[in-house]
């Protein structure tokens, strides 16, 4: 059976871009914020584009945080966070004040250290250095370009980093911990190489459909 992929609709984020990309790959994703859909889904995608504080406020408003955390952390349903969706899964962020995140992975969201010749936000195509090939980066080499667009970045333990990229300092490009995946860049907007990542994600979900 086709796994049920749920794109979490929290009133912001470029849901449609993610939806289009998954649709292009033949998946039938559902866009919803209902807790019933959350329960039935096999995997979740939390898309990007937005400010951290506002995103947490919206997630609280639709009242899904507890259930989502339980489904991901205890029931081990597969999760993919994109851009802001990656930042939300760490402990806290200093974007526009101080905000608590979902706290699934140890780490913080911090502002880039300013450097004379660098412009911010970090926007454009940058090449990544892959640290963990399987499963997300199968058939993808280090040096491949992905589209980044962000003003803040995640700092976390090395063991959870699956790829890095360089902009001034080395920053975290993607995270992987058990069933939790997250990318700072936008795979849905990185042409063929981005679609490959989403394909790898779908394949992973296919082979790891939760038992419940």
């Amino acid at each position, binding site marked *: 059976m086709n796994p049920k992929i749920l794109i979490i609709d929290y009133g912001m984020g*470029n849901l449609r*871009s993610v939806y289009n*990309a998954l649709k292009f790959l033949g998946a039938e994703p559902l866009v919803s914020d209902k807790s019933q859909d959350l329960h039935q889904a096999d995997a979740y995608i939390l898309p990007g584009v937005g*400010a951290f504080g506002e995103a947490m406020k919206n997630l609280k408003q639709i009242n899904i945080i507890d259930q989502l955390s339980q489904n991901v952390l205890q029931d081990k349903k597969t999760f993919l966070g994109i851009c802001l969706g990656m930042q939300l899964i760490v402990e806290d962020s200093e974007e526009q004040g101080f905000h608590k995140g979902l706290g699934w992975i140890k780490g913080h969201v911090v502002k880039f250290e300013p450097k004379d010749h660098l*412009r911010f936000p970090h926007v454009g*195509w940058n090449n990544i250095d892959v640290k963990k090939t399987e499963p997300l980066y199968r058939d993808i080499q280090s040096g491949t370009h992905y589209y980044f*667009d962000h003003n803040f970045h995640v700092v976390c333990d090395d063991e959870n980093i699956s790829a890095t990229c360089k902009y001034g300092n080395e920053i975290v490009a993607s995270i992987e911990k058990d069933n939790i995946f997250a990318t700072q860049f936008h795979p849905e907007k990185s*042409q*063929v190489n981005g679609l490959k990542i989403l394909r790898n994600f779908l394949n992973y979900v296919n082979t790891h459909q939760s038992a419940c």
Partner: protein
Amino acid sequence: MLKNRIVATLLVHDGIVVQSVNFKKYLPIGQVDIAVEFLNDWGIDEIVLLDIKATLQNRSPNLTMISQASKKGFVPLTVGGGIKTVSDIKNVIQSGADKVSINYAAITQPSLIEEGAIIFGNQCIMVSIDTRKNQDGQYEVFTQSGRLSMGKSPVEVAKISEDYGAGEILLNSIDRDGSKQGYDIELIQQVTDAVKIPVIACGGVGHPRHFLEGITLGKASAVAAGNYFHFTEHSVITTKSYLENDGIEVRLNTYAHYKDFNFLETGRLARKIDEDLEELRFTYHPKEII
């Protein structure tokens, strides 16, 4: 390392893509979603879709068009034209755009930039500035398709936009629009010197050399063109090859490339010498299945 972005601007007039000259003359090109699909296949780095008459005709963004266009491209899509409120921004993003470009409203009510940035993040808000030189030789910002003077300089507008939280500036020269004379480098330098956010240069490209000048002399983070990409064969790929020959870092992502080619004075590809052509063999690239 971050690559220099090659951006295509698609100007939409009455629902179809047009070429524009000095914001006055328009030449029809074709359907929006097809233009997006082609640019995507040619390896463009980003697409900016601007509904150029929306504000003038007091229309809201055309969400159907945006959603059709967004299905055809897996590169970042910025949409502008007629965005006046936060709910406009929200609708545009939910229809498939990744960023919004605000022009008139960013100058008349810069608080919209801030409100948008609080909800959608700074990186989502691009301010586009159209400018031309006035009689005194000073740059002056215009809106409403170059009809209405805002009484401000592009540097002022860029700085205010940055202060209010804009993530990028799209800088367009009305004088150079459609001229094929190259970017107004002086203008680009003024703005890139004044702000710390990325600046996208636009207006006047007629030769791949102009992209090079925008990056090296103008210090633009990204270089954009509209007309230039439409009727030139493999325009995006040849542009990138040209830039790469000159040592500019670009993202190359297509099977087709023109690495060992020379370019004519006109910027078009030079024919290879007969000996090289005889050596040529077809290479077979199986279609990649994702």
